[in-house]
């Protein structure tokens, strides 16, 4: 297979995404009062409406409409106050009425955008950056900003689930028969469609990640790619660099993780380049990403004519939302990740990288904000050490344990306290790590741990000088070598002093003391 970066030298990839998000935080389905729930026994969350029984009628969930409008506001969309539902007619066993209720030409949310800040290493996938802007120098990171336009976000209902029996790996091909579970049928679903504004698989991946953070911040979905509540399809085509006309696109499905989205698109770009460079033509088709074998395969389904007989759903009244309705939804808009990052940079003087990292995880960001509230007057000075603890020690421990922040015994107040002890040199950073480990295990306050374990850092200058002098006396040869230029031996002396203080000596002071004693004479 070709190398992506090389392919992108000759070819420009044009990528658009379709992102489906189930509104899993709602209580009930889109058009009936059955619960929205993952993992229930098959066909236990169904009723005449979502089962499409004769005579049943849909009634829209108001909270779902509010959610999509919130999503539209958060992604800079125009909110269409006058819109309606349509029927999309097609036969497939996972939709119970053989039509799906969705929206027509005018969706609740139209013409939005998101700005993506792409830093290294992701930025290096894009060498040609026309239409983008460099990150400001103040960000102290190299990379670029690119605007991804959003065509629309519309409201629809999800389909049920099929299980294929008798084939290999549950595939539809070769299956003897299939089983249908309608629990998921009519779960509220929003579909976001981007313009083909993405140029690299990294941009696609970061777009989806940003979107996921926004949806999580809004609280409209749990956005679990594993459970399918966040799903992404990609459209990708190639054109020669500098060409205006779009090439033939393929649609890519089954990219059920961020990595798969990236790798699937990267593979498909290279595959298309192969086809084109060997004189072939790209066939417009739907292809399936196979993560195990790392390639895409044509779904080989006969493409049914793309005529869904759309028409306005006669059972549902149209929408003519009032300004007040939209304003009320707007008033619920929380601080979004981008705004949060900007605030962290401005208020706490954090770097772009640190602030982005904090803001990219809703739980981490609110932990940070709570910590800063405890730090109160000292917030400015503790922000950086606190951030270091949070982004390094805390996240590393979460990675290892597989827990989320809320499941640990850590509290923002305790972590601020720890940051404070380190900032004041009461603890060395090594001691800090030990205290942190205790905190994770016991949930005790750092001060308590320090006292119990006798971990106060020795910062008594006179005492440290005494210890240093003794060490120099013990190793006169080494002292001589140092003085003759082998300054690397400083570490050796500091190590001896740390051992002598059982690790509680203030390494910074010890350092200074040796330098003074060795150089000063």
């Amino acid at each position: 297979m070709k190398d992506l970066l090389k392919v992108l030298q000759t070819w420009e990839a044009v990528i658009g995404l379709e992102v489906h998000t189930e509104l899993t935080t709602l209580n009930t389905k889109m058009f009936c009062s059955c619960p929205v729930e993952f993992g229930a026994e098959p066909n236990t969350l169904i009723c005449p409406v979502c089962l499409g029984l004769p005579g049943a009628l849909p009634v829209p969930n108001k909270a779902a409409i509010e959610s999509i409008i919130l999503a539209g506001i958060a992604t800079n969309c125009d909110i269409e106050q006058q819109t309606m539902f349509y029927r999309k007619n097609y036969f497939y066993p996972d939709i119970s009425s053989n039509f799906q209720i969705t929206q027509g030409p005018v969706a609740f949310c139209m013409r939005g955008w998101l700005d993506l800040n792409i830093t290294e290493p992701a930025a290096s996938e894009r060498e040609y950056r026309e239409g983008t802007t460099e990150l400001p120098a103040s960000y102290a990171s190299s990379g670029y900003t690119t605007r991804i336009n959003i065509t629309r976000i519309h409201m629809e209902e999800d389909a049920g689930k099929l299980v294929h029996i008798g084939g290999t790996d549950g595939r539809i091909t070769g299956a003897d028969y299939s089983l249908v579970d309608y629990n998921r049928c009519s779960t509220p679903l929003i579909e976001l469609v981007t313009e083909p504004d993405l140029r690299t698989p990294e941009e696609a991946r970061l777009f989806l990640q940003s979107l996921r953070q926004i949806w999580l911040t809004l609280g409209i979905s749990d956005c679990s790619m594993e459970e399918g509540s966040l799903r992404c399809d990609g459209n990708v085509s190639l054109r020669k660099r500098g060409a205006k006309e779009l090439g033939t696109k393929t649609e890519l499905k089954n990219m059920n993780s961020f990595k798969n989205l990236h790798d699937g698109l990267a593979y498909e770009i290279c595959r298309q380049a192969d086809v084109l460079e060997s004189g072939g033509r790209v066939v417009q088709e739907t292809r399936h990403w196979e993560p195990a074998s790392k390639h895409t395969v044509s779904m080989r389904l006969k493409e049914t004519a793309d005529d869904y007989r759309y028409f306005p759903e006669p059972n549902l009244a149209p929408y003519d939302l009032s300004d007040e309705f939209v304003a009320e939804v707007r008033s619920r808009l929380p601080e979004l990740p981008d705004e949060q990052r900007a605030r962290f940079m401005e208020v706490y003087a954090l770097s772009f990288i640190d602030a982005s990292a904090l803001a990219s995880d809703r739980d981490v960001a609110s932990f940070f904000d709570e910590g800063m509230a405890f730090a109160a007057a000292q917030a400015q000075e503790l922000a950086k050490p606190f951030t270091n603890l949070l982004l390094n020690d805390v996240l590393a421990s979460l990675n290892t344990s597989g827990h989320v922040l809320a499941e640990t015994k850590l509290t923002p107040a305790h972590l601020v306290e720890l940051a404070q002890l380190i900032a004041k040199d009461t603890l060395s950073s090594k001691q800090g790590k030990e205290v942190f480990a205790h905190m994770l295990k016991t949930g005790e306050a750092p001060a308590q741990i320090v006292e119990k374990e006798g971990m106060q850092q020795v910062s008594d200058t006179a005492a440290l000088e005494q210890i240093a002098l003794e060490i120099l006396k013990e190793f006169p040869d080494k002292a001589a070598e140092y003085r003759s230029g082998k300054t690397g031996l400083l570490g050796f002396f500091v190590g001896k002093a740390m051992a002598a203080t059982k690790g509680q000596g203030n390494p910074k002071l010890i350092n200074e003391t040796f330098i003074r004693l060795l150089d000063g004479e």
Partner: protein
Amino acid sequence: MYLTEEDVREIAAYTRIALVDGEVTDLKSDLNAIIETLKPITQYDLSGVEPTFHPIDGLSNVMREDVIKPSMLRETALALATSTENGQYRIPTILGEGSNR
């Protein structure tokens, strides 16, 4: 004439209705006769007229609160179906023999 026999076959396929021999000819003439009666619609001057999709003037924004109501018993639902297995609806192979997919 609006529809050819081929058109009729395509429409039948789209609506998932198998046609029996000889039915196409009758359907073609019936459907064409009906479509002929719809002509007035195509000849009406409708410039500047907005469509009315819902008959109740001014009715809009009908929604319900997000409150759970009990679902059906699975047995009740499945009892309506001819073919079920393990609490699910059983359908024959989607891509099997004779499939036009």
